[in-house]
């Protein structure tokens, strides 16, 4: 089995300079390997560092120590030492991230918000819109909303637009932060289906799933983040 993600010796502390320089340790000496086709669920109580780890895997947070190697363009690249333009290339081609909340871009219609990652990979405008339409249909976003900028959408609708945007590019590595948090039962099943399909095509998935039904349906194993917790020195 080939590892798509290989994390070793990872540590993360936050130092809050605006609050007297207090140091908040999150985790240390963390190792994690995720294989192609595998879905790992980050587990632990609120504040254990699940989101911090997930954001570190996207290079959104900068770890204090350790390495995060991800498969990219046929090789392995260390996210902790990659140049910004390399990280941008990695995010465009190899690693996708579905956050809980959609960051809305003014005036861009939902269909184009979803289509954008496919366009960035070189798909034509029509092909990208077609794929976006198929995903939005599957996620039960009514067609009359496709031409509207999602700023006015409900929380659940925004989350589904975000999921469609995250799954359109078929990234080899996917990071999911509570993708079903504000969805009803029917749409949860759609997302479970999308995750199963991503696994079947060989994607490595790391996610935070608070919903037990979703977790049991998609996760191959649980990864206890608390095991790497370090108390304040």
């Amino acid at each position: 089995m080939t590892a798509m993600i290989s994390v070793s010796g990872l540590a993360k502390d936050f130092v809050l300079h605006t609050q007297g320089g207090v140091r908040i340790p999150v985790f240390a000496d963390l190792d994690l390997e995720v294989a192609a086709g595998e879905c790992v669920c980050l587990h632990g109580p609120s504040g254990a560092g699940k989101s911090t780890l997930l954001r570190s895997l996207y290079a959104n947070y900068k770890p204090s120590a350790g390495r995060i190697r991800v498969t990219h363009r046929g090789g392995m690249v260390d996210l902790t030492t990659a140049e910004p333009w390399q990280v941008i290339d990695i995010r465009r081609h190899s690693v996708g991230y579905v956050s809980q909340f959609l960051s809305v871009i003014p005036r861009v219609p939902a269909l184009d918000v979803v289509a954008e990652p496919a366009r960035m990979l070189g798909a034509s405008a029509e092909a990208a819109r077609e794929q976006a339409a198929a995903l939005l249909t599957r996620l039960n976003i009514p067609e009359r909303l496709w031409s509207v900028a999602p700023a006015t959408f409900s929380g659940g609708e925004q989350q589904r637009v975000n999921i469609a945007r995250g799954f359109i590019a078929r990234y080899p590595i996917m990071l999911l932060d509570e993708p079903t948090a504000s969805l009803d039962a029917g749409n949860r099943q759609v997302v479970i289906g999308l995750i199963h399909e991503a696994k079947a095509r060989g994607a490595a998935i790391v996610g935070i799933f608070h919903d037990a039904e979703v977790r049991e349906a998609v996760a191959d194993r649980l990864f206890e983040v608390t095991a790497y917790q370090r108390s304040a020195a």
Partner: protein
Amino acid sequence: MSAVMVSAPVDERRPLLRVESVSKSYGSTIGCRDVGFTLYPGEVIGIVGESGSGKSTLLNVLSAQLTPDSGRVEFDLGHAGLRDIFTLSEPERRRLMRTDWGIVHQNPRDGLRMDVSAGGNVGERLMAIGQRHYANIRAEGLDWLAKVELDASRVDHLPKTFSGGMQQRLQIARNLVTRPRLVFMDEPTGGLDVSVQARLLDLLRGLVRELGIAAIVVTHDLAVVRLLADRLMVMWKGEVVEQGLTDQVLDDPHHPYTQLLVSSVLQV
């Protein structure tokens, strides 16, 4: 939007602009100190910091409007490779500014010819790079007015009859019409209403990505860089105190000043 640029394979990338330990002071007052970075084609870099942090001084040095006390600013001239812009002859530098560069000023009045029509403002840049066919210049001028969402019926009007937001969009059209490889922007949304800002930002984001133009954007508005910039440099007291991916710097700031800056933004 038509063709979106697909990034070149990693090994083919060569720098568009390379800045090495640039310093500039005004007497005993430091403008900027020891700034260095590399910009690649199509990349958008944001420079943030409060008034007096040196960001405008830096932008003026990078765009050859101000000579640094020390350091180098090299630009890729194509066949000639990377050349220090301050060793170019005056005609060479003027040519660079007309063809490869665009400068969008905070105040559109500094970047527009106020006594020339909207169409003339756009067409002038085309004539400066050698276009002579009137009908083509007018057609391209109209095309660019449409791109920046200005009504074609305003093509013969003077910019002084335009609102601030319209003037700023005209200035952007005037700069982008020659398809420069690098655009400098100084507070491009400064002084505009919030609703007008959003429209301008969305427009800029679309155009810069569509044309694959590299840009250096100076602003004090973190929302502007989050939307436009791939990378961010934070300036404080004339020095770059933190730099990296835009979302990384804003979401996980390390330097005390960056943390203060990020935590000072009011949530709406």
